[in-house]
């Protein structure tokens, strides 16, 4: 167990440079946009010069860049994310958005794994058969599809032509199904959930099929078969265990990137999650909001990666030794 503790400490320590790297990148890019005051000022052109000067001092704009970065980092480490350009506290806004994103991402990831892994195994067991080709093609289209575009097609079909499902938002005032809040939430969730699940599922099917095919060629599988074990035991007890470990990594990675990486889909469905709000904030150059969102996304991403690594270390003892 000492090995595992050391492994955990190493992984946690590794988060520090990653966080610093992201913070420097974000700080650098937002500062390249120019003087933040003048950016905000486009909205309030009538502000008197004394106010501008006071703002400059307040935001430490009279200091050199690296000092400003340290001030900025200090605030972030105290979760003091400031006030957005629209005047609301950034941290208060981000909480509900995170929940909305998770409400979409967690079910879709679970569904994708639960459907994708068996499909991949099935496909590998019947390699080159018609069923394999069907599954692989299905997965390949999902893999090559622009997510938001599939969402648009769903909206055209199910919202505009059939009128079955709402096309935007996570909840409505007129409750969509059975007049209940829960039914309404489900009705809003269905389309983005299906699209996201399909696209994520494709990755798992491809990966699982590939891993399974490689594992089935290993000598120990041959040995297991030669010793007269049932095919089911060989597949599910011996091959699957080895083939499934990379799935954990990909699950963690897609969860991490899903926290931030679905801005296209969230925008298509006007889903008020982190991705959509990031797009809105970035478009209007709302710097405190952009920074706040980036920090939250990065922290969650790092936590997701950490958990992935730990799980990986638990199931694969070779990892924590190296």
């Amino acid at each position, binding site marked *: 167990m000492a090995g595992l503790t050391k492994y955990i400490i190493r992984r946690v320590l590794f988060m520090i440079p990653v966080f610093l790297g992201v913070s420097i990148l974000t700080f650098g890019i937002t500062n390249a946009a120019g003087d933040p005051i003048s950016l905000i000022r486009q909205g309030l052109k009538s502000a008197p010069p004394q106010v501008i000067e006071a703002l400059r001092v307040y935001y430490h704009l009279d200091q050199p860049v690296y000092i400003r970065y340290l001030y900025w980092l200090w605030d972030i480490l105290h979760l003091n994310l400031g006030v957005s350009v629209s005047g609301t506290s950034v941290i208060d806004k981000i909480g509900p958005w995170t929940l909305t994103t998770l409400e979409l991402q967690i079910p879709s990831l679970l569904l994708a794994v639960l459907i994708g892994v068996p499909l991949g195994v099935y496909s590998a067991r019947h390699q080159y058969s018609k069923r394999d080709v069907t599954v692989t093609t299905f997965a390949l289209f999902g893999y090559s599809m*622009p997510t938001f575009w599939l969402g648009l097609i769903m909206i055209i079909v199910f919202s505009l032509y059939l009128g079955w499902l709402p096309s935007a938002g996570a909840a409505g005032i007129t409750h969509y199904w059975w007049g209940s809040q829960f039914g309404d939430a489900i009705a809003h969730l269905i389309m983005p959930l299906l699209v996201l699940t399909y696209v994520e599922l494709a990755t798992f099917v491809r990966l699982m099929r590939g891993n399974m095919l490689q594992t089935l060629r290993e000598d120990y599988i041959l040995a297991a078969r030669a010793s007269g074990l049932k095919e089911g035991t060989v597949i599910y007890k011996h091959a699957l265990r080895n083939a499934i470990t990379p799935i954990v990594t990909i699950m963690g990675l897609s969860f991490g990137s899903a926290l931030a990486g679905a801005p296209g889909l969230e925008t298509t469905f006007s889903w008020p999650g982190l991705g959509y709000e990031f797009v809105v904030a970035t478009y209007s150059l709302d710097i405190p909001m952009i920074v706040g969102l980036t920090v939250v996304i990065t922290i969650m991403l790092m936590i997701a990666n950490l958990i992935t690594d730990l799980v990986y270390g638990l199931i694969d003892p070779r990892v924590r030794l190296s």
Partner: protein
Amino acid sequence: MEKDTKSDVPTTQEKKVTERREASQWAVAWRRFKRNKAGLAGLFIVLFFVFIAITSPWLAPYPPRSYQSLYEGDAGQSPSLKHPFGTSNSGLDVYSEVLHGTLGDMYVGVGATAIAVIIGIVIGAAAGYSRGGLSDVLLMLSQIFYTIPLLPLILLAARVFLILVAQGFGLTLIMLLLGVFGWSTIAFIVRGEILRVRELEYIQASRALGASRSRIIFRHIVPNILTPVIVTATLLIAGNILTEVVISFLGFGDVNTSTWGLTIQEGVAYIRTQWWVCIFPGLATLFAVLGFNLVGDGLSDALNPRLRD
């Protein structure tokens, strides 16, 4: 070693033989690739899109970003002989936009991948060859770029720098951003392969036989690295095209150059009545990405010695 397998070849011709065998290695890969129908179909799709991209200035009936149809009274028309993919509400000929968009998106997809491959090879090779401090720093750098939330940072950078950059370089800027942010996978592969290959017995054997450093690098290590890099790069082109389409769909791309995502974005507001504006550029994206993915998969199968039978 070489004489064992081909003992009828005299020693004096050894160099010639190795060259021939090396060529036949690629021939074997091509033979294996040809047998893979899906990969071959992907290759045709990719070649088709490359052809469209090159000839788009002559093929397209309207110049890029031209609202000419509006003045011809054809705005918002459904697909017809004159406008095969219809026109948008503001008078864009969707067919021309899709053709011009092919050039734009191929430029970004291939260009960004080329940048990522170059950066990835340099950093990965340096991390694999050097020992101690430099190696750790480069590995850490790759890890950072692997972990960061890519799409948000690219969106942010595109938004900020497109304000600063002079008109006309928008698409190149997107390409640079995708390349500069997207090299980590290549770097990991290159580093991993170098670390793996350099300790292999046949490398030690050739070192013991007195092979020079450059011979080891170019004869033994480079071909080993090349295979996974080619496969990853092909898949990366697909990914970069997808990302570019998302970026321009969200309105962060170059609004003065035709891209598929930009056309989709213009259609969204009128999607209820004019579905064709969104559908056709999306289909083009789907098939281009599909083509590169198929080629990538086919190459991966053809070049993987473990699957060789």
